[in-house]
């Protein structure tokens, strides 16, 4: 259906962040509105993001550092929804982020089950260090700063188990990485000095420093400061020097940041950030271990080490809630308003994105296009026939009718084997030609296939996307781009 109007639509979005240390929830209201003048083809965008409710910050119910108690999670969510005065079925979009050490496969399944009741139809449960980095940077304001200043801002979200780095320029994410350092990797008696837990990554830091510390030992103030400083140095090193040393290389859970850009300023978010932007000094052991971890002293060390490196720290808009706010209000994208979809096909979840074409070299020839598509699609399809696949491409070689028509023929031809098995053809095109391409695909397939052709969404090979049911009277679809990496698999 086609509507030219200035109408707006409001959606309730939830963000749930289940991290190593804390579990949080935010509920927010997103407003989708047409920002184009009346006589031009509409441009839908999220015009307002309003946080309606911020939950308490709960300790994540996790037993002997391995498994999450899913029933406890469900209880927390139930209580928070009650406090917010909202019902789970009011929620239309959002994301559940399972992060840090909790992002293990066995946990993911449990959590999915536990949250499914409290998250609406179009909420994704996902974990992925890069996605977390991106959402934290959007929630902390680093992304907005980069848009305002047209310079690269790095956000480091330092939580209990990991430091997630997202780098933004012009409001777009340009790089991401994750280091296995955090405030909760060494645990102590609250306010005391007895070590109660040392996570494996922290052990590496200890080895590197030559500090011998075991569970049950009494840690000295100096030892804790040295551990925190070393962790902080790794954060500085990852931003300033992109060729990691031995320890950083070991603790990086992703490839290091690329070295083809300059970082202008750094924003720190996450629980540790509150001690970065305060005047806290680690003078007494009792304050250093007040939460039973090394969070406060790590915050202080970050402040000190970045100052020593001459890097300016910009103030975040959110600290400990950056990720959950990012998940709640920044996880959804809106497609271009010229799309071609069979409505009954949607929503579609966990569509794996494939990019069969080389960057900047879009072929024109039908058979070349078909071959590239079938090579990629048939390979993935034979590995796992149950996967829903989507083809992502920048656009036709030229935005002309002939090119688009040939592209449609090539795509259809290349997808024929796959379509015989699963009747939905999903195409995500960057250029503003989703409708023309969709229409051509409809014609070349003789109207025999279900078709979802959306434009103006940025996706990459390896991304998974969820495509929601059309909103704004069918003009646009909400799309959540996610990266499902549960383990150290993509290094």
């Amino acid at each position, binding site marked *: *259906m*086609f*509507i*030219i*109007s200035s*109408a707006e639509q409001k959606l309730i979005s939830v963000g749930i962040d289940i991290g190593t240390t804390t579990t949080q929830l935010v509920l927010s209201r997103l407003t989708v509105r047409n920002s184009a003048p009346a*006589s*031009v*083809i509409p441009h839908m965008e999220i015009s307002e993001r309003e946080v309606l409710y911020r939950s308490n910050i709960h300790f994540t119910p996790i037993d002997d550092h391995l498994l999450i108690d899913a029933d406890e999670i469900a209880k927390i969510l139930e209580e928070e929804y009650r406090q917010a005065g909202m019902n789970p079925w009011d929620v239309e979009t959002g994301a559940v982020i399972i992060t840090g050490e909790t992002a293990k496969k066995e946990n993911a399944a449990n959590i999915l089950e536990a949250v499914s009741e409290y998250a609406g139809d179009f909420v994704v449960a996902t974990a992925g260090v890069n996605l977390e980095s991106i959402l934290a940077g959007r929630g902390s304001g680093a992304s907005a700063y980069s848009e305002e*200043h*047209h*310079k690269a801002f790095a956000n480091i979200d330092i939580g209990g188990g990991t430091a997630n780095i997202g780098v933004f*320029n*012009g409001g777009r994410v340009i790089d991401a990485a994750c280091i296995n350092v955090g405030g909760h990797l060494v645990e102590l008696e609250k306010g005391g000095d007895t070590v109660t837990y040392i996570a494996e990554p922290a052990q590496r830091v200890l080895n590197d420093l030559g500090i011998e510390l075991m569970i049950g030992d009494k840690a000295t103030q100096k030892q804790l400061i040295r551990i925190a400083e070393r962790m902080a140095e790794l954060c500085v090193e990852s931003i300033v020097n992109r060729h990691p040393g031995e320890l950083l290389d070991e603790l990086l859970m992703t490839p290091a940041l690329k070295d083809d850009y300059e970082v202008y300023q750094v924003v720190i978010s996450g629980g540790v950030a509150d001690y970065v932007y305060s005047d806290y000094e680690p003078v007494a052991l009792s304050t250093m271990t007040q939460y039973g971890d090394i969070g406060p002293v790590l915050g202080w060390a970050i402040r000190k080490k970045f100052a020593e490196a001459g890097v300016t720290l910009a103030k975040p808009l959110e600290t400990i809630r950056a990720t959950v706010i990012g998940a709640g209000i920044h996880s959804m994208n809106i497609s271009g308003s*010229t799309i*071609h979809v069979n409505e009954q096909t949607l929503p579609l979840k966990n569509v794996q994105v494939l990019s069969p074409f080389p960057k900047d070299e879009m072929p024109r020839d039908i058979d070349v296009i078909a071959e590239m598509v079938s090579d990629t699609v048939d390979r993935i399809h034979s590995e796992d026939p149950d996967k829903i696949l989507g083809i992502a491409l920048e656009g036709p070689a030229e*935005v*002309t*009718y002939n090119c*688009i*028509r040939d592209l449609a023929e090539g795509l259809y031809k290349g997808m024929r084997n796959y379509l015989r098995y699963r009747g939905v053809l999903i195409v995500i095109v960057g250029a*503003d*030609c*989703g*409708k*023309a391409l*969709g*229409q*051509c695909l*409809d*014609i070349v397939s003789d*109207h025999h296939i279900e078709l979802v052709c959306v434009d103006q969404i940025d996706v990459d090979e390896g991304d998974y996307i969820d495509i929601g049911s059309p909103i704004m*009277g069918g003009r646009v679809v909400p799309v959540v781009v996610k990266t499902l990496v549960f383990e150290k698999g993509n290094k």
Partner: protein
Amino acid sequence: MANYQNDMERMIVESVLAELRKSGAAPAAYGNTTAGSVIEDGVINLPDVDHPTLTNAKNYAAVEAMKQVTTARIGLGRCGTRQRTDTWLRFQADHAAAMDAVFLDVSDDFLKKNNLETITTRATTKDDFLREPNWGTQLSEEGVKKLHEICKQDTQIHEQRFHSTITKVQVQIIISDGLSSRAIEANIPEILPPLVQGLEAAGVTVGTPVFVKNGRVRVMDQVGMELGCDVVLNLIGERPGLGTASSMSAYLIYRPTKDTVEADRTLISNIYAGGTPPVEAGAQLVDLIQDILKYQCTGVKLNEATK
């Protein structure tokens, strides 16, 4: 041969010399155009104003980002209190292109290549067209006759193709030069194929598109009343600006009458390579026309109906 400081200076000198040569006044010694000149085979390569040429920008990336969202001539620097010469030349050139778009006709070659028959209005010349706005909204007697002939052929073609009888088509597409012949030449070849094929694929009957010479927006009302079709689509050249001279609009009207007013029309504007690409606009119009046929109205009424 003089030593020029830059291409711009060379271009100015050569342009002047070219003019002088036409009048036979050029000094013979300067008569040769050297390789690498900005004038080649009669084509003038215009100075680029799409990228910032400020020399002392504090944040070059910011200027670039701003330029990406506007066609306004910002971030180009200055020379004393005036614009730089290349900026100024480009301004003059774009202004000339806008003037050409208004005053030049759509070429016969173009019409022939795209199988477009010409229907005339009461405005027989460009001067009449520009001076008497009403004449461009009324078909000439000859124009009306030709329109009916073409329409009759359309119903016959339909019979041959689909073996069913129709008295009229549902949608008639007209193409008017309006205030930019350049918009027509640039966009029509890209918009017609997805539009016509898309409509036919959706089972909508479409008349052969015709070209209305010296036509204005409201000429579509007469076309609709003459043919009795459901929808008239007028693809018309927009008043050119310095940003682009090739932007086209698509006006739609459902069963126009003498009482039709502007609020009854539906419009998609800004159709050109730098706005909504014509091929995408064509696909978009297919959906829009189907909605119009479903709701049996256009303009404000359509907006209300689809709310």
